[in-house]
């Protein structure tokens, strides 16, 4: 008993020092610093992108390159919206269903994409998300079609409550994916990425683990989609099945550092606010600046910010799963 308590305490102590824990605490305190609903609105969007980027990255870690994450986001968004519209399901209850349909889609996508690699996989996922968008457009009786659907915003649009809800989703997503990265599942995923033939020669079932990666990667974007439609109060197929949503996590991951946990987070934390800042500070032409910033970033930090940081601190070697403290 005492031993268990002591272990709990020591776990808590080491947890406090965990960067993720500190990060989450900082995020939880953010509304105190950002009094303005506008800043909170942007912060919530950043959280959504963080979750999508980290989720995309976990699929990339298994060697599967998706250009269709908007499909998960979109199907999640439509699930919660349509549940509300037809069955008056509370959005908070609808969101888990968003995650479910997104996972179902991921299974379908994963199975279709099993024999595909690299560009073939990327384009197939893109195709699937385009197919879904067209289906939503072409079934206006059910989905509201291209016109879209207006829905009452969650919590009456209270930005603080919305922020904390999204933060809760983000915490679940980040801690799940953080835990995954320290588990044996993660080892299997990375092995698949490095060499699939070797992976199967050491007992890893590639089909199973590729599908796991798909599921993990779709779960939280679907949830975010379910949140997003009620956050904006409006949904239409062009804004949720948008290729930009599929591309954004790639930009964020590559900028921050692909195949790292913090890379996509850093990427999202930089990209979205910078874009928003440019948007409000120069009405026309800011996207030119944005594009040029992207080019310069990759020109000078080709391996992303995380690698640059590691090189700077002299930690360029890969860190084993579970951090450095394991071993000897």
């Amino acid at each position, binding site marked *: 008993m005492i031993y268990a308590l002591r272990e709990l305490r020591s776990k808590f102590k080491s947890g406090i020092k965990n960067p993720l824990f500190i990060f989450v605490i900082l995020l939880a305190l953010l509304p105190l610093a950002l009094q303005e609903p506008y800043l909170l609105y942007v912060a919530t969007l950043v959280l959504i992108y963080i979750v999508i980027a980290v989720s995309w990255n976990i699929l990339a870690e298994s060697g599967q390159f998706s250009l269709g994450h908007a499909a998960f986001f979109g199907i999640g968004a439509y699930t919660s919206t349509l549940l509300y519209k037809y069955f008056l399901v509370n959005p908070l209850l609808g969101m888990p269903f968003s995650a479910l349909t997104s996972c179902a889609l991921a299974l379908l996508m994963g199975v279709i994409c099993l024999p595909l690699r690299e560009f073939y996989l990327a384009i197939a996922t893109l195709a699937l998300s385009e197919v879904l968008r067209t289906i939503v457009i072409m079934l206006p009786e059910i989905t509201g079609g291209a016109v879209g659907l*207006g829905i009452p915003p969650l919590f009456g649009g209270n930005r603080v409550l919305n922020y904390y809800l999204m933060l809760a989703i983000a915490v679940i997503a980040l801690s799940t994916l953080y835990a995954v990265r320290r588990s044996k599942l993660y080892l299997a995923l990375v092995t698949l990425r490095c060499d699939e033939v070797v992976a199967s020669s050491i007992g890893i079932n590639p089909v199973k683990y590729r599908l796991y990666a798909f599921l993990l990667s779709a779960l939280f974007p679907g949830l975010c989609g379910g949140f997003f439609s009620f956050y904006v*109060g409006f949904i*239409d197929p062009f804004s949720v099945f948008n290729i930009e949503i599929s591309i954004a996590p790639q930009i964020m991951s590559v900028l921050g550092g692909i195949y790292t946990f913090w890379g996509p987070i850093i990427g999202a934390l930089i990209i979205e606010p910078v874009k928003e800042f440019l948007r409000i500070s120069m009405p026309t032409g800011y996207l030119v600046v944005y594009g040029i910033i992207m080019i310069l970033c990759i020109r000078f930090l080709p391996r992303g910010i995380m690698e640059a940081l590691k090189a700077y601190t002299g930690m360029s070697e890969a860190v084993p799963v579970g951090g450095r403290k394991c071993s000897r």
Partner: protein
Amino acid sequence: MIKTKTITYIVIAIVIVVLVSALALYYFTPRRPTLGVQEIKIGVILPLSGPYAILGEEEKKGYEMAMEEINGKGGVLGVPLKLIIEDNQGKPEVSVSAAEKLVTIDKVVAIAGEYMSSCTYALLSALRKYSPPPIAVLIGGSTDSIEKDFGSEEWFFHLHPYAYIYQSTIRDWLLTLQPRPKTIFLAYEKTAYGTSQAGYAKEYLSKAGFTIVGEEPFTSGAADQTPLVLKAKASNPDVFLWIGYAGDSIVIVRNAKQVGFKPKLLLDTVGVGFPEFQTSLGKDAEYVCGIEVWSPAVNYKTGPPFPITHTSEWVAKYEKKYGKEPDYWSLLAYTNLYVIADAIERAGTLERGALIKALEKTDLQSPIGRVKWVPGQFVSRPHQAEFAMKMVIFQWQGGKKVVLYPKEVATGTVIYPMP
């Protein structure tokens, strides 16, 4: 003794006279109320990047023109207007983001602008959650769900026709044609704009006694619409009516000419109004008809506070300033800002309640028609601009847009059937 007494009386008298005259002066001088601010901030949300940037730019020109004029005359109640222009990238969530910023950071007096229906809807939905919601006088959004869901809000005023107006205008005009056309083939692009219009087109036109011989959704942005045109040709309609964007109209008209499809009338909903339609097609643009909120040939008499007497003066001014023909979006935007400025002027304050009251009493002879609030089709609150309850029909003749309908503003007569 007396002397001092007299002096005392005189002094008192002088003091009283001075006081009374000062008071009288104070009371009888026409006094400009002071607003107590350095500038009046108006938020404007438009698409300035992405596929709809073309129209956002047009709007921006209109707003800037109006602002320069108003501020050139000393602003509103002596305070200059300041436009805070936000790009919404044509995305609903960015529109919301912009709205949040305008309301909470910039603390604008009113929000203007918008173009796409999806963005307009999301924006209004975001505004509604404030208590009280900020004033929105918008020129974007033609989907009727905006009217149904927000039309009865006291803080929302709308300066653009809703989808049904396009089709009711088309119906009314088609009924005036001699000989009256009997059959219509309807094609529409499958996004929000096309599908919402098509529903009304079907309803209104068939109720008015026209036969819809075929209807067909199409993908906007396709390189070639020959199959669509062929389908239409096969059903041999009197009128080929399509609802598409500017690019689609170029392709559709070209393809129609190519396959020799010659209905009595080629009629588009908004895609053929742009000058680029004519420059891109040259003589093939001839006799194509379209519908617009306003067309540069339409000339209204204007009243104060507009510094012009007729719309044509505005057109000349615009052409001088920007070196091109204006689009109705710039005039809408121009009018939009004047409507807000006029209400502030009359309210004499920036206080929300008073401003809404002043807005409700708006009655301007604007260069785009009369701005007086009337109810729309679905809600009884009169917050829809009167001019936006009808539209104009034009035809390309000799490389120029000739206005055919309504009669009051017509500048020519229709050439029908098309030669």
